[in-house]
Every structure is written in C-alpha cells, then in structure tokens.
C-alpha cells in the first residue's frame, strides 16, 4: 500500500534564493531544491510551479542542466494570478514544484552542427537553457547564431548577458526590435527580417525557436526558403498546460498533448497538425 501513496499531483518544496528584475514586467527567479538534488532537467523542459492558495502554472526552465548545482532558474512575466504572486515573493520564500516535464531540444543531434537559435519576445527564456548548455560544450558545436526579436527596446530581457555573448565571439548575436525608440541604434523590424541578412549552411544547420504564436509560421517559412529541412527545425509551443501528465486535456494540439509530447517538437512531426502552428 505504501508505494501507492505516491501521487503525481503532489509538488515538492523549493526555496527562492535570488530574484532579479529583467525588465518592468519580467523577473528572473533562482530556486534551490529543498531535497538537495539537482533538478536534472533537459533544455526545453518545464516545471509546474505552485503558490499554495493561488494556484499552479507551468514555466520553462531557463538555466542549463546542472550536474551538481541544486539551483535552477525560471524567468516570468507578471501577467496573471500565479505570476503576480511570484513577484511578491522574497528570497527565503518557498514554492512547490512538479517536474521537470515534457520533451527537450535534441542537443545530441546538434553536435557537430551549426545551430540557429531564434528567440522572439520571452522565447529567450527557455532557449537560454539550450544555449548555455551548448556554451559549456562549445567545441562540440559549429556556429551558434542567436537571433533575438523584441517588441520595443524597453521589453528587452537579459540585455547585459546577450551583449556579453556577442562580445565573447562564441555566439553570433543578431537583435531587432519591432518598434524602436530614440535610444535604439540596431535593427528594426520583426524577427523574420533578420534571416535574409545571414548566410547559413542549410544542410548543416539546426534551428531552435521559441516565440509568440504568430512568429512560428513566418520564421519557419524563412528557414525553409533558406533550404533548411523541416527535420532540422525544432520549436517549443505554448499551450494551456494544467496537469503536466497528459490527462487534463487543456494543452491539446489536435491529438497531441503539449505537456508530454511537447513542448519541444520537431517541425516534421507537427507539420500536418492544423492546430500546431
């Protein structure tokens, strides 16, 4: 009987150790697992985070997998009940988590290849997990190109980190904003406008992209135009994930459950699904 006391719905406690504002609305949260173990996630996976009395919501893990370190990071936009309550937390506070859940970016496939990372809006948050994993094993990959698109300069996140990446020479960084202000000196236009500006070796390039729903169709079309095959394109899709176990039905894309079949999908596997992109 005792083994049956297990329930996948029970979260475990983690403690907030650091809280860093990234923009007016977005904050990075660093948590430490109370069980003293690393989270053991893969890039692209998510956790369901609970603030008791408020609710539970899914968040992508933003930090790369760590072998011994028991901390992990997520970055969150203040937009609803759970994210609002999270922003009111101070270091030392506890929250509950379940997971990590879901599919991940197939980093082993990327080994020896060039990788184009396309981050629209908050898409950089989950992609950061992949990017920093690759940087830890930098010589195992070819070129790493990072494209970042933001609505306006004020909403840019991880600004210093991205600037440092560009300076490091390890990542080719291209940035754009849709609506520039007087401070902005860089590219202007939606993220798709960056693709024609770069030469890629289509047969040797894998793409990982995360962004707002509207973005995928256009960026995928640009990638295809460049000759990158569907099998080389990986997307992470957002849906209303509730249970994280493939049961509650909210996150379905046609017959797929985003929480267990995704959130990371190879474009080939979802091309035929009308509800996907």
């Amino acid at each position, binding site marked *: 009987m005792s083994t*049956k*006391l*297990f*329930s*996948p*719905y*029970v*979260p*475990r*406690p983690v403690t907030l150790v650091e809280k860093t504002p990234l923009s007016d609305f977005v904050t990075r949260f660093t948590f430490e697992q*109370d069980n003293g173990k690393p989270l053991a996630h893969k890039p692209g996976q998510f956790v369901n985070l*609970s603030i*008791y*009395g*408020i*609710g*539970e*919501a899914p968040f992508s893990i933003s930090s790369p997998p760590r072998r011994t370190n028991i901390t992990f990071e997520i970055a969150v*936009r203040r*937009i*609803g009940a759970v*994210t609002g309550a999270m922003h009111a937390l101070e270091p030392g506070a*506890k*929250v*509950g988590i379940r997971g990590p859940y879901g599919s991940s970016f197939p980093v082993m496939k990327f080994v020896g290849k060039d990788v184009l990372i396309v981050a629209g809006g908050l898409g950089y948050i989950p992609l950061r997990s992949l990017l920093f994993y690759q940087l830890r094993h930098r010589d195992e990959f070819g070129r790493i190109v990072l494209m970042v698109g933001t609505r306006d300069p004020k909403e840019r996140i991880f600004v210093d980190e991205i600037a440092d990446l560009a300076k490091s020479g390890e990542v080719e960084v291209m940035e754009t904003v849709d609506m520039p202000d007087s401070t902005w000196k860089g590219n202007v236009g939606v993220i798709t406008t960056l693709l024609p500006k770069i030469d890629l070796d289509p047969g040797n390039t894998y793409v990982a992209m995360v962004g707002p*729903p509207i973005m995928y169709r256009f960026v995928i079309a640009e990638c295809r135009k460049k000759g990158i095959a569907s099998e080389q394109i990986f997307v992470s899709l*957002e*849906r*209303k994930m*509730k*249970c994280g*176990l*493939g*049961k*509650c*039905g*909210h996150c*379905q894309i*046609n*017959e797929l459950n985003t929480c*267990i079949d995704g959130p990371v999908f190879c474009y080939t596997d979802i091309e035929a699904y*009308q*509800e996907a992109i």
Partner: protein
Amino acid sequence: MTTYTVYKEQLPGLFEKWSKQYALHVPARLREGFYDLVPWRKDLEIAWDYDVAYNSPKRFVMPPHEALITYDRRTYEAKPVFGAPKQILFGVHPYDVKALNQLDQLMEGGSPDQNYIRRREATVVMAFEPLTVSPSGFWASVGASSVAHGFDLYWTKVGPASFTVEIGSAKGEELLAMGGALLPSTAGDKEGARRAKARILTKARKNALRYNWEETPRLLAKCWDSPLWRRYSQMCLACGSCNTVCPTCYCFDIREESDDKLETGTRYREWDGCMLESFAKVAGNHNFRPKAQDRYRHRYFRKGKYIYDKIGELGCVGCGRCVRACTAGIANPLKVFNELWEETAHEY
C-alpha cells in the same frame, strides 16, 4: 464463462447485504423520461426498463469535484488525498461499461492517475442488458452494444422474474454468492439471454451510423475544412453541457481553496469542458481555440479520431446523452458523422 440464474425474489436480500458493505446504486425513475443511478433503499422501485441514466457513471470514478492534495502554506509540505468509497453500480448498460473501460485505459496509461485508479478499484460494476433504447441512443452502431470485460457481473433479464448473471470477476462471484447457493444457468436460460440481447439490438439499430464505425477516423481526417463545423457551431452556447453528460469526457481543471486563516488548503480537480470559451486560453488572453467552430470541431475529432488513434476505439459510445442535453440542438454525433459521411460519399 460461468453463468448463474438468479430470481427476482432473491434480490432484496442481496441488495440488503451488499448495501451494508458498499454504497449501492441502482437505476430508478426520477420523473417522466428521466432515470439515474441512485442510492438503493428498501422501498425503491428499480427501473429495469430505463433507457439511459441522464447523468453518466463517470461521476463515480471521477467525481465532478475531487480533492488531489492538501497543502500547508507555512511549511510548503503537501500530501496526496485519496477518496475511494466502496461502491456497487448495479444496472450499468454496456455502452456505459465501455465508457468506463475507456476511462480506465486513458487514466491508467502513461502517468497512472492514482486518484482514479483507487476509486475504480473500489468500484464494483454490475452491468445490465438494456430493455429499452433511448430515442437518441445509437450505441449499437458504434461497437458499444456488448463488452468483453469491465464488469464484475453481467445481468440479463430472461423471464418475468429471472435473470442470468454472467461472472466477470471473482469479486462479482463472491458478491453473488452472498445470496446463498448459486444455481448454474440452464441451456434454456442461456438461450433466453442470447434472445434478449438480439431483441434489444434490433431496437437499438434503428438509430445507426450509415457506415462502419471503424471508418470514423478516416472520415474525419478528410473533413477538417467541412462547412458542417460552422453550420452546427453557429448556434453553440458554449455551455459545456455535452461535455458534462458525456460518459467519456474526462478533461479537468485544477483549482484550490485555502482555509480562512490562509494556512492550509486543498487542491482539487473539477470537470472542465473543451466547449467552454476559456478552455484553451492562456495567460495574456491568447486563446488557442477562440471560435465555437474550433471548439466544436475539436470535440468531434476527439470523439471520432484522437481517442481512436490512441486506443483503437471510438471516443463516443453512442449513449445519446449529449443529444438530449444540448439546448441548441447541435450536439449529435450520429447526425454529424452521418452528414460528414454523405458529404464525402462521392470520394469513396
């Protein structure tokens, strides 16, 4: 398969004994044309000829509101909550047994849902061969007129005061034996049961799909862009009644409630429905199925294709509850599937 014959006069004694150990639910008439499984009591008249229980039996294994965990906001400890009352569902029609079997597969598969599993394990299902078919039922044409498993006992009325009872499990046999020595059915009684089934099937086939139900997923695969979805869904009130009464709809939301000191609380699941406007809406108000048409089509695809692709059965058992529950008169799997079939008939 062992079959025994049981006489009506034995029933009050059996029910009495069972009800001491189990919550016993039996079919009864609520008012003209409305039946349901209700708690048994001595003076209750059993509605042997009920056509369909207006509320499906899924509520016994997956209640509309079910606690999953309790939490403590001070320590952030959480504990699982399992409720699993011992219950007997007597008189469940085969299409509803089939629906339960389907829930079993979906809830036990993948990441096993312990809350469901425990409730199901504590539930005894006593199936009953229907004597009447509801005007909206079409179960005989979707492969839901008989079940090979999923019941502990299967009752068939073979005479004015006699039943054959097929044993489906050791638990069922044990419960039946509480009435005294078991009387193996004669060949004549077994033949009576076969005739009873044939009789009801003849009636049930009056409402039928115009094609073999196994074609449904292939049919739907061609019909994503059919004008039918819009034609029907324009009247959808997005009330979720079809989801609520459906014996195979099991989507749920997860919510929680704290005590008045905000120290401890309970997280529970609650039935949800894909026809409700907010079902696929995420934070920031992006709705992945904003139109009634999207939601309506999704439900029929789930019943006719997605579930089939997963477990090889239709997600619709043809009970016809949604047909009756829909105030706009648009929920009707039989009509929808038949019309799609006609629409695409020239393609075959």
